[in-house]
């Protein structure tokens, strides 16, 4: 999708929010940023609110039950043999619905060579997401074990002109696919601890980097992702994440692991820094490196 189309999509997203402002209650608190710092999580690599790699049950932005919030984000991941630039926008409506868009630009570097595409081959993937909070409230439900639970999907489309080449080499079934997930996130204020566990049904190979489905399997299988975060201050959280992935191609996909720190300067800007271990990618080993992300919004 070219830049103009992408821009108009983002603007359509934003325009979609404004009618809600017009129909807001008399006190007009729609853009009041009613929620507490960090309660919207940060934006992950798929554009949804959560940690760095895990999608949480949070709704992005600081809109409380009567308001809306939105964010734009930019993320850069640089591991040993490839890098990823990721940017997008997301909207949170009345602490109930989240809509998100992320564009992932992969610079395949040496992995491109391994994929038979040529070194430094670039391609990208668009991720369209929607999430609905079903039950629970992250902050208020401190007197029960009930987590905040949300369900959602992320539809991923690769724009890859040489897909046919890779498909033949690796037996990839499709250049697009949809992940479905259930996320349960709980904040234990008494321990200053946040815990997320998410189950994702996906066919994505390397998060979509290698398409969807493969010779070993083209079925949806449940995968697990989760985060643990410790609140150091109102603005600062440190933690770790884990994410499993399917093995549809037979190229040994490793689980992802990262340790992260996220800092909310205020309700407008937050930054996340992580050390990520993505394991082996397309037979290239030990893809570890740095993850940096900035999120701005309200």
């Amino acid at each position, binding site marked *: 999708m070219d830049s103009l189309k992408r821009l108009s999509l983002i603007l359509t997203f934003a325009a979609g929010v404004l009618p809600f402002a017009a129909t807001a209650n008399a*006190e007009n*608190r729609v853009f*009041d940023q*009613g*929620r*507490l710092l960090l309660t919207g999580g940060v934006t992950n690599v798929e554009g949804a609110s959560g940690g760095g790699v895990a999608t949480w049950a949070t709704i992005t932005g600081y809109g*409380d*039950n*009567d*308001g809306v919030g939105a964010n734009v984000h930019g993320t850069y991941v640089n591991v040993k043999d490839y890098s990823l630039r990721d940017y997008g926008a997301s909207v949170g409506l009345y*602490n109930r619905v989240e809509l998100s868009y992320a564009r992932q630009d992969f610079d395949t570097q040496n992995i491109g060579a391994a994929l038979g595409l040529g070194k430094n081959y670039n391609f990208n993937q668009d991720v369209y997401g929607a999430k609905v909070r079903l039950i629970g*409230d992250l*902050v*208020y*439900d*401190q*007197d*029960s074990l009930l987590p905040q639970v949300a369900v959602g999907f992320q539809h991923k489309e690769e724009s890859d002109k040489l897909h046919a080449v890779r498909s033949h080499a690796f037996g990839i079934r499709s250049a697009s696919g949809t992940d479905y997930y259930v996320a349960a996130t709980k904040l*234990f*204020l*008494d321990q*200053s601890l946040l815990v997320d566990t998410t189950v994702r049904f996906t066919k994505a190979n390397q998060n979509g980097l290698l398409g969807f489905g493969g010779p070993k399997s083209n079925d949806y299988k449940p995968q697990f992702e989760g985060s643990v975060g410790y*609140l*150091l*201050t*109102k603005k600062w959280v440190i933690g770790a994440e884990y994410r499993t992935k399917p093995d549809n191609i037979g190229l040994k996909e490793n689980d992802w692991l990262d340790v992260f720190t996220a800092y909310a300067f205020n309700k407008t800007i937050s930054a996340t820094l992580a050390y990520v271990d993505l394991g082996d990618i397309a037979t290239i080993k030990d893809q570890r490196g740095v993850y940096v992300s900035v999120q701005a919004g309200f």
Partner: protein
Amino acid sequence: MKRILMFTALLAAVSVPPTVSMAQSAMDTGMPSSNTAGAAPMAGDDVYKAFHEEAGIQRIMDDFIVRVTTDPRIKDRFANANLVRLKLLLVQQVSYLTGGPDTYSGRDMKTAHAGMNLQSGDFNALAEDLQLSMDKEGVAFRAQNKLLAKLAPMEHQIVTK
């Protein structure tokens, strides 16, 4: 010897454990028993100490009252409040919840906030003001969160809109 033993027995007889007599008199005279405080108190008094005990909680609430009555988001909510009584009750409630010696003599959260049509934004604004007051007093963040863990579920009673 006999007189000493009798005296000791008499002393033992009148040394009824204070909690029993207080509870008894509470039931008899209707003295407060903190069951309207909105949550069970914390075990031990570590958090009460982290709040610098009675003096610290007084200072926090002095600062808190100033904040909420000048916070543009919620100051109008306090237009008709008896601020002296409110501060007294807040100190009682926080002292009680953090494991301090006070008992809470106010109304339950639902009754106290009935008819105010409060929204979650109001509740969160107040929580943020409380955080700032606790920060100013130098209460450790972990201890602050332990109090917030007690207060957060009260949202279900307090927010009606």
